[in-house]
């Protein structure tokens, strides 16, 4: 295999996060009752016309700027004609010539952990189709057009990727950009972020590219890696056995981990693209682009460097923040307002707010807590007025009740004071009840401390073990 090189290009379909569809006012929310979110326009009723949603243009421009692409001053929509029951008009409004974004690149770490530039050919806008649901039981096909007309940005890379791993790195990078900038929710289970992979193989010294196959509709990082790896090996085996790769579209079967032929080039549609006469060309001026640029947050790559160099956050912590710019904005505010070391502060954040968000599937906007509130809470922990465990409890309380944060902290601090008095007497009791263990400690068996802490915690369940340990050491040293 070593003298084979694989050549991969990805077409990533990014569902744009807009309230309404690209050409109608229907909602794009996921999971509604089938066909509840399909208007006359989405259904392609005779006489209806598409009207472009401006939000879609803004998001596409943001993406173009984020990948150093060229925003087209004039962009046009085209019709891609093919018959399919879940495509109501039997043409898809897409872009062929003059896509909204041309060129651009991002950087990834390649297999040798060296920064590598992956060029992007174009990113164009299009409407999504509906869904066909084939029912064996009823012996028919149901059609749900809720997804029809959902805005998509199709990001087409140059064939610059050389391994499945690079493809995944590239895809993750694009995912990070679109989610951080809130261009897309990036939800792969719901199909908001999926890709087609063009794969071919050639000998390293060959200048010409091999015949490529297209793997359709892969919706997870893991499957992208598996599907591409399978396809690379399939093509190599085929050629080494004297066969020939044919240009075709293939589907990845997740259960069997194989790719299967879907249709050959000969069977491929002639899409008969032509400019959509129902939509005027999109004219974009410099001022509009500048306004969008000025409103954009720092890009994830720059943000990563800043978190590493200015705040010394761990990679794990950074990855969490780069998932969503609202999250990173929240933490940035806390860092600015608090004296606590960012790495530590971030741990407090993860173990309380972030945990809660993940558990209950909430956004940071859903959490009623402000960065100021959070600062007050963690400062109280630092001042030892309350325990670390209290952070989570206070965050929970703030989510359900409206109360002054100070008051809630005070309440917990008072409880801790009361606890501390209890704890002192508990420690005294544990020490006098266990003279043998006290002796062992005195002889240098410091590990026995855990036993004392455990005994105290049996009664004082919510107390801070670190604090108890400190106190026990102090008392034992006096004995």
């Amino acid at each position, binding site marked *: 295999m070593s003298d084979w090189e694989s050549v991969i290009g990805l077409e990533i379909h990014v569902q744009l996060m807009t309230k309404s569809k690209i050409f109608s006012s229907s909602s794009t929310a996921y999971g509604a009752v089938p066909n509840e979110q399909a208007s*006359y326009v989405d259904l392609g009723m*005779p006489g209806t*016309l598409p009207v472009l949603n401006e939000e879609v243009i803004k998001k596409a421009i943001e993406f173009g700027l984020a990948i150093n692409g060229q925003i087209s001053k004039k962009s046009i929509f085209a019709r891609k004609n093919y*018959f399919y029951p879940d495509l109501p008009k039997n043409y898809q409004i897409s872009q062929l010539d003059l896509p909204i974004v041309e060129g651009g690149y991002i950087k990834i770490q390649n297999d040798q952990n060296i920064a590598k530039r992956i060029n992007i050919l174009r990113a164009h806008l299009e409407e999504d189709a509906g869904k066909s649901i084939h029912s064996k039981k009823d012996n028919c096909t149901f*059609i749900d057009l809720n997804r029809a007309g959902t805005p998509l940005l199709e990001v087409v890379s140059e064939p610059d990727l050389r391994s499945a791993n690079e493809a995944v790195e590239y895809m993750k990078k694009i995912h990070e950009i679109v989610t951080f900038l809130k261009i897309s929710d990036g939800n792969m289970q719901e199909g908001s972020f999926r890709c087609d992979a063009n794969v071919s193989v050639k000998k390293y010294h060959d200048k010409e590219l091999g015949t490529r196959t297209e793997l359709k509709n892969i919706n997870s990082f893991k499957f992208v890696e598996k599907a591409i790896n399978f396809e690379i090996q399939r093509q190599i085996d085929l050629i080494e056995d004297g066969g020939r790769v044919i240009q075709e579209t293939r589907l990845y079967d997740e259960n069997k981990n194989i790719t299967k032929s879907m249709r050959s080039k000969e069977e491929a549609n*002639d899409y*008969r*693209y032509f400019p959509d006469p129902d939509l005027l060309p999109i004219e974009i001026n410099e001022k509009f682009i500048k306004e969008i640029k000025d409103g954009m947050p720092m890009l994830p790559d720059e943000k990563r460097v800043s978190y590493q160099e200015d705040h010394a956050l761990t990679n794990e912590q950074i990855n969490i923040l780069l998932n969503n710019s609202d999250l990173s904005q929240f933490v940035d505010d806390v860092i600015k307002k608090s004296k606590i070391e960012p790495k530590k502060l971030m741990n407090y954040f993860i173990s309380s707010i972030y945990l809660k968000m993940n558990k209950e599937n909430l956004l940071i906007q859903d959490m009623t807590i402000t960065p100021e509130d959070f600062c007050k809470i963690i400062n109280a922990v630092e001042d030892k007025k309350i325990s670390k465990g209290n952070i989570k409890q206070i965050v929970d309380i703030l989510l359900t009740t409206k109360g002054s944060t100070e008051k809630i902290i005070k309440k917990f601090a008072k409880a801790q004071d009361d606890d501390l008095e209890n704890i002192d007497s508990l420690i005294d009791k544990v020490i006098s009840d266990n003279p043998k263990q006290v002796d062992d400690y005195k002889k240098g068996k410091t590990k026995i401390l855990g036993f004392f802490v455990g005994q105290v915690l049996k009664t004082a369940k919510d107390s801070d073990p670190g604090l108890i340990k400190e106190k026990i050491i102090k008392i034992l040293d006096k004995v």
Partner: protein
Amino acid sequence: MDIYKKSLTQLAALLNSKQISSKELTKYFLKRIAKYDSKLNSFISVNEDYANQQADNADKLISAGKNNFLTGIPIAHKDLFSTKDIFTTCGSKMLEKYLPPYDATVVKKLNDAGMISIGKTNMDEFAMGSSNESSYFGDVKNPWNLEKVPGGSSGGSASAVAARLSPVATGSDTGGSIRQPAAFCGLTGLKPTYGSVSRYGMIAYASSLDQGGPIGKSAEDCAVIFDEIKGFDKNDSTSNHQIDFKKTQLNLTKDDVNKITIGIPKEYFSQEMNEDISKIIFQAIEEFKNLGFNIKDITLPDHRYSIPAYYIIASAEASSNLSRYDGVKFGYRCQDPISLEDLYFRTRKEGFGTEVKKRIMIGTYALSSGYYDEYYMRALKIRRIIRDNFKEAFKEVDFIFSPTSPTTAFNIGEKTSNALEMYLSDVYTTPVNLAGLPAISIPVGFNNQLPVGMQIIGDYFSESNILNIANYFQKETDWHNYIPEEFNHE
């Protein structure tokens, strides 16, 4: 009272002065339809109950003094304008039982103005045709001679207004479909600038060319309807939002007239032009000259290419626009399809007529990979050249006059076997659609007892000027007042 002869302004006055109620007026025209339309077949459906109900509402508004100018006056709509819960067939079996869930913007605006929608008029299937012979609902007859076609595709609207079965009607014009039937039936028909009138709810034939407009007895009637339906519509991105659509004032003076120059394109009066018709057009031009207009010869050198360019572009767009009729969601579905392909093939085979299939095939071919550049792209280039021809001409003149059609109404069946000859009858009208300009057809005489129409083309968004000079001419002449004998009774 010879109500059928009255102009919209006269009808409005009768309603306002309560000499007649809207209910009476509506019944009057419904009665005329019942009496005469079996001869003409100009209506596909007549909405008697709906019309009476609208008339009752109109009468309430009139007696409360809350009426608009057009409140209570009947109108007929070409059957490609979507009408909520009223069959809209587009002249096709494909949509024979299609009930739109919403009103087209044009229909909505006229309903809001208080007009009574008395029925839906016959038309060539999906507006593809120049003679109204491609309708699934049968040929329409020309009231001037029942052996003749009324023109197309808005043949039903023209026939109905010519026989005075409706005071006025809407039509649509993709390559001449308002102007040519207006000419064949002795009426005035306005094709507005592309973007003046919303296309929302008007079932598409060729989106970059389609434009709705009025067919009426006079320029004055057309102006009244045009004023009501024009303007930007947020549901149609191609409707113009930059133009300030003011109310049309028909107030052209002798002084204005002396400053106006009319261009006569020499290419439009070539050998293919019927000599008799040519003579009538030149008499009309002479009349305009006598009224004080300046006349000037001009050239539109590349217009001979407009027919092929038009049929490529219109068919290409149609092939895509009509893809949605597949038996899946609405309209005709073949019986017991055995597979998806079978559903598609049989639904479209059985649901569409010959002319529609022909154009879908031409369009599909023209857009196919390998042929796109040779056909579609070239047609677009010609389109640009034709537009430039007009642009040059309008540097020298204010209006361009031409015949509307090379012939008067021809016999039913005469051209159905010769597609090319049929297509050539649009030779003077298609360039206007390709350029997106406004134009009107007005009656200017008769040849063998059949009306002859003249086309007046203006610059972009100059409808008001076009209507003004047409109206100026009609005030001095009475070609527009002739009514076919057979229908010139109560």
